[in-house]
């Protein structure tokens, strides 16, 4: 294959990255570990989103709903259910929710699916807000949450799981079926791809890890506000990271996450007022000039090089 050299350099990069993840808590202070946690959180969310939205072309703008549901479950069951049970349960809740709404939602394609998933996430957010208000719970405080290091390690595991999931799906027969239906759903179905089942499975798989991410992140801020864990900016950021990365496998999301997460950390610290403006400008540039992301750009440059 033509890409063995870049495969090897990516493998080396992955190993180096894993080393950094492991070493960080021993070397850095709380601020550095906090940044590491943020990066890991996006690394857990973005590849999961890619399983559905990259591979099938059904772009979900409601990824935060799984995160929010997971967070809410942990908060509601706080001190009643142990964490080792609550975190997987959060993943299960998110996956179940995806399985329930996926059937009807995945009947619509293109912009309709985008809007539908956004609306669905908002619907769940406002329903829970109304319920919390009615039961007199404006905000909740979590006492005795585990410390930053525990949260960090949990998130590292989730990020690893998410990257492995995308890598596995992308290289599997299932993944080839998803890519086929992305190109043409009717042709794929007529050639034997069980499109309905595959789309739903991809949706469920893309939900489980974000549910657990939400559960773990709820422990980070001891103070729980519904609007915060269902913040649509989470969904938008995931899409931005996947877009900047590009490609069908784990490489794209990794590059996109690193680039955007570190950039926003820098901007928050140096120029908080400019943060959203610069972020917006970057997105516009990518959508217009590099629609297939860093991965696509690298591929094009390589091709140009071999031709020259």
């Amino acid at each position, binding site marked *: 294959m033509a890409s063995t050299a870049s495969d090897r350099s990516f493998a080396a990069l992955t190993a180096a990255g894993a080393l950094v993840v492991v070493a960080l808590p021993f070397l850095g202070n709380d601020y550095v570990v906090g940044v590491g946690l943020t990066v890991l959180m996006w690394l857990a969310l973005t590849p999961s989103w890619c399983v559905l939205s990259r591979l099938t072309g059904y772009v979900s703008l409601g990824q935060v709903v799984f995160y929010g549901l997971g967070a809410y479950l942990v908060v509601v069951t706080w001190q009643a259910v142990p964490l080792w049970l609550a975190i997987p349960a959060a993943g299960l809740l998110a996956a179940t929710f995806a399985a329930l709404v996926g059937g009807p939602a995945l009947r619509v394609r293109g912009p309709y699916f985008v809007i539908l998933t956004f609306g669905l996430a908002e619907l769940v957010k406002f329903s829970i807000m109304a319920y919390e208000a009615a039961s007199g719970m404006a905000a909740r405080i979590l006492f005795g949450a585990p410390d930053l290091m525990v949260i960090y390690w949990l998130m590292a595991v989730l990020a690893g799981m998410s990257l492995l999931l995308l890598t596995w799906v992308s290289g599997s*027969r299932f993944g080839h079926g998803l890519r*086929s239906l992305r190109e*043409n759903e*009717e*042709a794929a179905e007529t*050639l*034997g*791809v069980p499109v*309905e089942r595959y789309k739903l499975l991809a949706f469920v798989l893309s939900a489980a890890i974000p549910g657990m991410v939400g559960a773990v992140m709820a422990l980070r801020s001891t103070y729980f506000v519904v609007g915060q864990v269902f913040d649509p900016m989470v969904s938008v950021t995931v899409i931005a990271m996947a877009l900047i990365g590009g490609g069908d496998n784990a490489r794209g999301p990794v590059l996109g996450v690193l680039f955007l997460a570190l950039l926003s950390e820098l901007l928050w610290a140096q120029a908080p007022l400019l943060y959203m403006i610069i972020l917006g400008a970057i997105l516009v540039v990518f959508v217009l000039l590099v629609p297939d992301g860093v991965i696509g750009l690298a591929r094009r440059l390589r091709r140009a090089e071999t031709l020259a």
Partner: protein
Amino acid sequence: MTALLKVQGIGKRFGGLIALTDVSFEVPAGAIVGVMGANGAGKTTLFSLIAGNARPTTGDIQFAGQSIVGLRPDQVCRLGVARTFQIVKPFAAMTVRENLRTAAMFGHALHRTARAADTATEPVLEEVGLAAVADQPASTLTLSGQKRLEIARAIATGGRLVMLDEVMAGLTPTEVTQMLDTVRHLHSSRGLTLLVIEHVMRALMDLCERIVVLHHGQLIADGRPEDIGRDSQVLAVYFGGTR
């Protein structure tokens, strides 16, 4: 010869529009049967009903002795029925080889790995004349190439019955001749049963041992090509004239 495909009294309505009424015919195993008819006669609808893309309002369809009405397209494909699309539907961003891989992995052949699928589709690429462009994106193919890709994908499913929907429409006379050779070769080398929709009369007369004729959703003739050419009803429909 036993019938591989039995179509029994099928009809299809789209709301108030009647697309097909009480159509019955059989396709013997190993045969090449042509489907003729003007635009809107219901030919493509017939293919969609057999392939499971649409469900008949009435009647039954049997493949290898088993009713396939109500099955999804992917299930019908896995049983061994493949079709092409008149309006081509390539996986544009994938290479030609990857297009065939989908068919070989998910169709009747059901290869579990990409490697096994690619090994199985290599001869198909040769036979259909796409070997030279195997690693090009499907979007770069000419119309003739895309029609060939439709055929190649259908063959790559490993199905026994392959339905070709106007694979020669829009091709130059030379390309039609080449395509006829390809289809004939595939039929004999792979022992396929073919059901062929075609507007190019010469092609149908040349290729088929039997032809069924649809007109306004009804089957008006079913017989050997030379008899179809003399059938008064067919002549009336095609050329006008007295009854």
